[in-house]
């Protein structure tokens, strides 16, 4: 039950990240079109904020998809008995570090709100808004890492192995 909800949650974050990636393109298209019509529209800031949103909302989904790069050269050659504790160590370290980060990114968003920090460009975006997005994305990543840690501890095997892209992803033509 919880597992199903979590998987849906990571997936939803992934789609949100993709939507923001489309947002980058839309912002820049608007900028080009506006320029041709002689209107000054600066979309660099909006595009940048979409990029940040895309990156952070995408973290958990990308993690579950095995797309975060790591060097599993040694790990993959360890005997199963030794490999397990190493993977548990990795997820534990990741969970601790990313939870710590989630805490401080949330603090940053609160601080920006308290400081009344606003982006310098035409958008005049209060920074706490995109930073709250960052906090949500990093928290989702922390949850995914803790989820994975508990899964490993309960006897499961790692679900974040990178798929061999070449083998699986032949061109559709």
């Amino acid at each position, binding site marked *: 039950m919880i597992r199903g909800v979590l998987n849906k949650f990571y997936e939803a974050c992934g789609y949100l990240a993709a939507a923001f990636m489309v947002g980058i393109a839309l912002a820049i298209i608007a900028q080009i079109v506006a320029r041709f019509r*002689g209107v*000054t529209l*600066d979309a660099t800031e909006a595009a940048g904020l979409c990029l940040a949103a895309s990156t952070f909302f995408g973290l958990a989904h990308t993690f579950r998809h095995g797309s975060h790069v790591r060097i599993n050269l040694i790990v993959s050659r360890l005997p199963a008995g030794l490999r397990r504790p190493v993977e548990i160590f990795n997820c534990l370290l990741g969970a601790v570090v990313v939870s710590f980060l989630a805490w401080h990114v949330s603090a940053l968003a609160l*601080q920006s709100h308290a*400081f009344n*920090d*606003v982006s*310098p460009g*035409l958008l*005049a975006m209060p920074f706490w808004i995109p930073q709250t997005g960052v906090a949500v994305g990093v928290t989702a990543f922390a949850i995914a890492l803790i989820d994975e840690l508990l899964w490993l501890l309960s006897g499961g095997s790692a679900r974040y192995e990178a798929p061999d892209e070449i083998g699986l992803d032949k061109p559709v033509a």
Partner: protein
Amino acid sequence: AQTAWTMASGYPESSFFTQNIRQMIKEIEEKSGGKLKIDLRSNDSLIKLDAVKRAVQSGQVQIGEIRLGVYGNEGAMYNLDNIPGVATTFDQATKLTDAQRPFFDELFKKNGLRAITYVAWPGQGFYTKQPLKGLADLKGQKLRIYSKQTQIMGERLGMEALILPFAEVPQAFSTGMIQSLWTSAQTGTDVQVWDYVKHFTYTGTMHNKNAILVNERAFRQLDAATQKAVLEAGEAATKRGWELAKKASEERENVLKSHGMTIAQSPKDILDAIEVAGKGMVQEWLAAATAEEKAVYENYQKSLK
């Protein structure tokens, strides 16, 4: 006890802002009898320029230099010296600063900050391929601008205003995306503008300001004598800064000349057009300003008489 501060700033060592800071640090160390040492990390090497205010406010570093105009979206006062025509000479810029100072002191105090130095940027002008004989020469030119105010100014002068990140300027020039720049002699030499244009027409128009901010908590932890040393050195840096800015302006203009550029004072009709554009913006500024902010502008106007 000895205290060590870290200072962040956003300009290279060769910039007069950085030279001014170096001198200020030297004076603080001497006057405090070596009790306060400041490690300056210039040129964005520790904290990027736009993030320095938050870094000082949150105590990541104890002291740093900011560009006030960056925070125009946070409060109208940050924008006043960004409006064309409000302070067109160094003398006016000094008076404007004096009028703004009590307001800023109050604002920074509320935010746990303290401004110890204000330094004005040299005045600005147009960088163009052809000499500017009058307003007509500007019509239809593609101008790179950097703020809402300069955009409005450019458009009211009949130009096509284009906002571009600083780093895209060289490429945009060489591909013809932009034809002219509106900025200071300092920034002009920073992008080695002579590779693209031959004429600098000085208009003055505005003197943006930088400020050196100290984290109030870190400041309070100093003993009284050291606090005094910091404030005095900061005050001295303000005075020296204005001199350095004037000198840098001349020096940079000489650099432009030495690369074959022609320097000219602006034709009257361009200045008039900028003034008209600026007046409109002042009215808009006043309409949006709070009573305290309006008072600052009125005090400044009085001080001019």
